[in-house]
């Protein structure tokens, strides 16, 4: 037997990253902002989108790409509010991949949009590993999940461009301490902006909407 070693250096995310790069180029050309919302099932991602509809309406035209394992419930929820929402079903897959998102984007009326929000499959682990070509990943964490999630799922919170802390109206009923949660977030990402809010009551939505608007305005400046 003659053994030999062949040196190779090939990125395993190569194909996904290629599609992500294509998406990034497509978005940049059209000055479209794309955000990738990542959080546990039930963390309030769809409720956050519902609360964003009315508040963004006067500012930007936006569309939602809904990632789910099964059912079109979420896209229907958003469509009832007049949002352009497409459902991406992974059929058992735990995350969206760049190719699916790229193809879904091509089906949208891109010239009539300024912001696209992708709601990833509810999961704190897998979606964090896949670049979709977005401007930024947004970690959505609800106060009911506990303060220590950022330390337990560091990849997502490290990569996130923003953290939205949802369901703050429930804090009075929980042993949740905001300071402690902030410490855990700072421990993995010292600079990320954090937006505590209640999508249900509307408290704290203002600064979050301003941040989204600022990201979109920033794109305009960069390309002029």
């Amino acid at each position, binding site marked *: *037997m*003659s*053994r*030999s*070693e*062949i*040196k*190779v*250096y*090939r*990125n*395993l*995310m*190569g*194909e*996904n990253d290629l599609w992500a790069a294509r998406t990034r180029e497509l978005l940049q050309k059209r000055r479209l902002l794309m955000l990738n919302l990542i959080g546990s099932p039930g963390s309030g991602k769809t409720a956050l989108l519902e609360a964003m509809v009315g508040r963004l309406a006067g500012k930007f035209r936006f569309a939602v790409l809904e990632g789910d394992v099964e059912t079109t419930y979420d896209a229907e929820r958003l469509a009832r509010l007049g949002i352009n929402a497409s459902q991406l079903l992974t059929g058992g*897959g*735990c*995350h969206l*991949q760049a190719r699916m998102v790229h193809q879904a984007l091509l089906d949208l009326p891109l010239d009539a949009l300024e912001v696209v929000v992708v709601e990833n499959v509810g999961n704190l*682990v*897998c979606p*964090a*590993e*896949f670049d979709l070509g977005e401007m930024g990943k947004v970690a959505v964490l609800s106060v009911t999940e506990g303060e220590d999630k950022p*330390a*337990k*799922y*560091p*990849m997502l919170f*490290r990569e996130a461009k923003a953290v939205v802390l949802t369901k703050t109206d429930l804090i009075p009923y929980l042993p949740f301490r905001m300071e402690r949660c902030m410490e855990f977030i*700072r*421990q*993995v*990402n*010292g*600079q990320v902006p954090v937006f505590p809010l209640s999508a249900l009551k509307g408290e704290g939505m203002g600064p979050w909407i301003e941040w989204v608007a600022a990201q979109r305005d920033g794109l305009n400046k960069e390309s002029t």
Partner: protein
Amino acid sequence: MHELSICSALVKIVSAELQRQAPSAKLLKAVVCVGDLRQVIPETLTFAYETLVAGTSLAGSKLEIRHVPVTARCEKCGWEGALRENYFICPKCGGHDLDLLTGRELHLESLEVDNDEPK
């Protein structure tokens, strides 16, 4: 279970590289590097690999996973080194502005082949 989609990319790449660099050799082992920041479970990755290569010309080959620790450089004081698990704060100055040097790897490093055995 994102290990399965990572692994199907891996098997595709392994087959293509083997075909290109040593088409008549038998694959003994594929070596992959996985950064510790990646949330890849080694047992799941190995299981996915064995499942995907079963019944193909790569059947019987092993998957070796090399872990790459998370290391960083502090932008404030210039410290460089390995980070405590899930703790992205400079151990020297307490600064938060850390540049990750390693820990996000996910690549095929090498292939070990037997040149004698026909495929």
